[in-house]
C-alpha cells in the first residue's frame, strides 16, 4: 500500500466515506457491458448452480441447474449460457473490419470478483474440449462457449486488459475505504463505503451489508446457511418428486428452487449495475482507449482463429508459449504503470512521494547549448529544475516529462541545497532538426514541470525460438497435439 493510499484509508475511516484515490477511470467501460453473476455448488470446483447474465439491468436472464450434481444438466446449463454469451459476442463481429484494423468495439464481460473469473476459467476448461458427436455429445455451442470463456479468463491475467473485469478489483483500485482489504473483497461492503445509504456512514452501511439475507455473498460460493436451510430441502424435493414420478410436484419444486436462487443473485445483480454507474461517473483516462485497442486486437485475433477452425487453447502452455506470454504480461504491466502515472496526477504523486518522480519550476535554462564533442554538433540544451521533493535518480539516468513525451532528459547533476534540490537536465529530441531549438520546445524559466524515470516508449518484442526448436534445457520439442479419437477417452496427463 502506498503512502497516499494509506492516508486516503485513514481519511475514509475518519470521514466515514470512501475516498477517491484516482482522478480518472483507468479501465475501459463498455456502453453495453455483459454482466455475469455465477453461483456454484458448495464443495465442487466447478458445478454451476445458477447465474444471472445479461446486458440489460432491468432484464437479466436467469439460468438454473436444478440438480447440480447431474452432469447432463451441467452441460445444459453451459448450452443455455452459451446462447446468451456467444450471441452477445457475435453481436460485435459486425461489421467486418478493414484489413489491418481491429473490430471497432469488443464485448466486455463484468463479474463481481476475482473468484468469478476463476469460475469462468474452470467452466471454460471443462467445456472447450467437449465433443459434439459420439456418446457424450454436447451442443455445438458448448465447446464454443468454452473457448470464449478460456479466451476471456486468459486475457484477464493481463493487468492492462479490460475484456473481463472484476468489479471489486476495479472499485478498490479507484476508491480507498476505511476497512481492510479482505473486507473490500466483499462487493456489498465495498459499495457500502463508496455509496453509503442516505444518512449513514460507510462503516454503518458496511455493517448493514454484512446481513446475508439482504446481501448474500456475491458468489460464486453461496452462503452456507442458505445451502443448509434452503437449498438442501429444495433440491431434495426435486429428487423425491422425480423418484415418485409426480410431474406436478417436480414442476413446483423446480420453481421453488429457482425462486430461492434468485434471492441469492438479485442483490448482487443490482450492486453490479450500481458499480457500473459509479464508474461511469468518472471520466476515462487518456490512455485507456490505447489499451482497449489492444483488447480489440486480441478479440479480432480470437474471432479469426475460431473462423479458421484452429484447435482449442491447449490444456497448459508449452515452454515457448509460456515464456512469450510472460514477456507480454510484463510489457503490459510496464506500459500500464507508465500510462496510469501519465494520465493521473494522483498516481504520479505516489511516484513523487517515493522519489521516483519530481516536480518543480525551471530555475535556469540554457536553450541554445550545443554539444560539439562528437563528430557532428548536436543541440543539447540544459535546464535546471528546482524542486522541494526527493530525487532518487542519479546523474546519467534518463527521465521524461509526461507533457513532453518525445523529449528525453539526461540528469547531469543533482545538488541538494537546504530543502531544495537543483537538478540539471540535458534535453534531446523534439526540438527540430537545426541547431536552434523550435520556439517552445525547450522549457522556459519559471515553467512548472514533472520529470520521471517512467517512460512510455517502444520496447522491442523479445525473440523466442519456434515451438519445434524448444532447446534441450527445456525438455526439447513438445509432441504434437492429437485430438482424442471418437469413442476413446482423452488421455489424462496427471503428472
Amino acid at each position: 500500500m502506498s503512502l497516499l493510499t494509506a492516508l486516503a484509508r485513514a481519511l475514509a475511516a475518519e470521514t466515514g466515506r470512501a475516498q477517491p484515490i484516482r482522478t480518472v477511470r483507468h479501465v475501459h467501460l463498455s456502453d453495453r457491458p455483459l454482466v455475469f453473476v455465477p453461483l456454484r455448488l458448495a464443495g465442487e470446483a466447478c458445478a454451476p448452480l445458477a447465474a444471472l447474465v445479461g446486458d440489460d439491468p432491468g432484464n437479466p436472464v436467469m439460468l438454473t441447474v436444478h440438480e447440480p450434481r447431474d452432469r447432463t444438466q451441467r452441460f445444459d446449463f453451459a448450452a443455455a449460457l452459451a446462447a446468451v454469451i456467444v450471441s452477445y459476442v457475435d453481436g460485435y463481429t459486425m461489421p467486418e473490419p478493414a484489413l489491418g484494423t481491429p473490430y471497432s468495439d469488443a464485448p466486455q464481460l463484468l463479474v463481481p470478483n476475482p473468484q468469478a473469473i476463476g469460475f469462468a476459467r474452470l467452466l471454460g476448461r471443462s467445456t472447450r474440449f467437449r465433443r459434439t458427436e459420439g456418446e457424450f455429445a454436447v451442443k455445438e455451442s458448448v465447446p464454443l462457449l468454452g473457448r470464449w470463456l478460456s479466451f476471456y479468463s486468459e486475457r484477464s491475467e493481463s493487468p492492462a486488459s479490460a475484456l473481463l473485469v472484476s468489479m471489486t478489483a476495479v472499485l478498490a483500485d479507484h476508491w480507498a475505504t476505511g476497512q481492510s482489504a479482505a473486507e473490500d473483497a466483499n462487493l456489498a461492503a465495498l459499495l457500502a463505503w463508496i455509496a453509503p445509504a442516505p444518512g449513514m456512514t460507510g462503516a454503518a452501511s458496511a455493517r448493514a451489508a454484512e446481513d446475508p439475507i439482504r446481501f448474500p455473498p456475491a458468489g460464486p460460493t453461496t452462503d452456507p446457511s442458505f445451502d443448509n436451510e434452503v437449498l438442501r430441502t429444495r433440491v431434495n424435493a426435486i429428487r423425491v418428486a422425480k423418484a415418485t414420478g409426480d410431474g406436478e410436484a417436480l414442476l413446483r419444486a423446480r420453481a421453488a428452487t429457482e425462486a430461492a436462487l434468485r434471492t441469492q443473485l438479485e442483490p448482487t445483480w443490482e450492486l453490479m449495475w450500481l458499480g457500473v454507474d459509479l464508474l461511469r461517473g468518472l471520466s476515462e483516462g487518456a490512455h485507456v482507449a490505447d489499451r482497449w485497442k489492444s483488447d480489440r486486437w486480441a478479440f479480432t485475433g480470437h474471432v479469426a482463429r475460431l473462423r479458421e477452425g484452429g484447435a482449442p487453447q491447449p490444456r497448459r502452455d508449452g515452454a515457448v508459449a509460456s515464456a512469450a506470454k510472460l514477456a507480454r504480461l510484463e510489457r503490459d504491466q510496464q506500459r500500464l504503470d507508465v500510462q496510469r502515472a501519465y494520465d493521473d496526477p494522483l498516481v504520479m504523486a505516489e511516484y513523487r512521494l517515493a522519489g521516483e518522480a519530481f516536480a518543480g519550476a525551471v530555475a535556469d535554462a540554457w536553450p541554445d547549448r550545443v554539444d560539439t564533442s562528437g563528430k557532428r554538433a548536436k543541440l543539447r540544451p540544459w535546464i535546471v529544475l528546482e524542486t522541494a521533493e526527493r530525487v532518487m535518480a542519479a546523474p546519467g539516468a534518463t527521465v521524461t516529462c509526461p507533457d513532453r513525451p518525445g523529449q528525453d532528459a539526461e540528469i547531469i547533476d543533482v545538488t541538494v541545497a537546504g530543502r531544495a534540490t537543483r537538478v540539471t537536465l540535458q534535453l534531446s529530441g523534439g526540438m527540430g532538426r537545426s541547431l536552434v531549438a523550435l520556439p517552445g520546445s525547450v522549457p522556459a524559466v519559471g515553467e512548472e514541470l514533472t520529470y520521471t524515470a517512467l517512460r512510455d516508449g517502444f520496447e522491442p518484442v523479445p525473440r523466442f525460438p519456434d515451438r519445434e526448436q524448444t532447446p534441450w534445457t527445456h525438455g526439447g520439442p513438445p509432441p504434437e497435439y492429437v485430438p482424442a479419437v471418437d469413442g476413446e477417452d482423452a488421455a489424462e496427463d496427471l503428472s
Partner: protein
Amino acid sequence: MTSVAGPAELARQATERILTDLASAERGIVVDSPPGAGKSTLVVRAAAELAAAGERIMIAGQTNEQVDDLADRLAAGHPQLSIGRLSARGYALSERVAQHESVQVGTAVADLARCPVVLGTAAKWATVTEASPWPWAIVDEAYQMRSDMLLRMAGQFEKALFVGDPGQLDPFSVAETERWLGLSWDPMSSAVAVLLNHNPHIPVHTLPVSWRLSASAAPVVSEAFYPFTGFTSATSYGERRLVWNTRAFGRNAVDTALETAAESGWALYELPHRQTLRTDGEAVRACAALVARLLERGAQTVSERAASSPVTASSIAVGTAHRDQALAVRRALAEFGIIDVVADTANRLQGREFDVVVVLHPLSGRRDATAFHLEAGRLCVLTSRHRHACIVVARAGIPELLDAHPSVEPVHLGVPAKFPDGWEANQSMMSHLAEWRVPAL
C-alpha cells in the same frame, strides 16, 4: 600454515572434480557456489582450460557489470588469450576492461570471430542469430537468470557449465500470475531449476570453501541459508582481525557495537521497539553514525592477504531492503561528509565484497512480515558480503514479529518446497545475533 591447507585442499579437489566432469560427455554441469567460494576463479579457470583444449567458449553473465568483472579477471589471468566482449550498441566500455589489450569489443559475433572466448550478457546472447551453435557455454550467476532467458539463448550452445549461488535472491517478475506454477518449464523460475527439471542426470557440484567469509561468519551463514550443503571458511579463528587505530573515549552504544563486531565479526545494534514507516529515520541515522564512527576511529584489517591494511570508505557498505532506504542512508552519510561508502539494496549488492557491512534489517520496525521481507535470499545477500564484520541495525521485536507471522505461502502442486524457508532462516540468524546484541542508548 596447516590450518589453511585443509580447506584449500578441499577446494582444490572440488575444482578438479568439476573440471573432470566438464570433460565427460554430459551436456551440462551445475556448480553451486556459496558466497565468496571462488565462483569467478572457477569460471576463469574453466574457460582457460577449455580454450587451451581448442574449444570456442561463449560466456554469459547477467549484467554488464558482472561481465566486465569476468572479462577483467580473465584478461588479467591469461594475457595471451584473445577475448571478445560482445556488447549492445551504445554500451560504454568500462576502464577495467579497456586497459587489457587482449580484449576486443564488438556488437556482433562476426566481429569477434578470431576470439576463442567471447563474453556478453545473457540478454545480448539472446539476440544473436548464428547458424552453428558454440560447442561450450559458461553461464555465470545462473540462479539469478530466469528460465525464459535461458530458453532464448539455449539454442546457441551444445554444452554448458552453469555457475551460481542458490542462496541468493530469486529472479523477479513484475507480472503477478500463478498460471505456470508447477510446470517444469515455469518461465518465472530460475534457469537452473528448469534445466535440472528436464535433465535430472546433470551433475551438481558444490564449492565447499568460502574465501570471503571468516571463520566467525561462515558457520552462521552456512547454517541459516545452506542447511543441507554447508561450507566452511578458508581461514581459521583469529586469522582475520579488525584492529582500531584509536581507543574510544568514554563509552557509548555505537562504540560498543563497533568493538563487538571487531571482536566477534557480528553485532546487533538494537534500537528500541517501534513500528515505523518504511524509511525509519532513526535506523537510517544509526547506520550512518556507525559508519562515520568507524571511519573516525580508523581501523586496520589483519588477514591472510596483508599483515595490515586500513579500512577505507570504499571497503564499507550499507545494505538495505528498499531503494528509498538506501537513498536515505546515502543522504545521512553525506551529512557526515562521507560519499565513498556504498549504500544500496540487496539486489545490487549481490556478488560484491566489502571489509565491513552495515545492514538495515529488512524486518526492522515493521508491523507485518511479508514474503518480500522474509525472503531468505535477501537476508543471505546482506549478511554474506563482508570479510571482517557485519553490523545489523534493527528495532527490537523481530523474533516476536516472526512468531506472529508464520509462513503462510500457499503450497502448489509440482512446486518443490524452498529450503531454507525465509522464516526459518530469519529465526536462525536472529538467534545467532542475539548473542551480540548491543542496545542503543
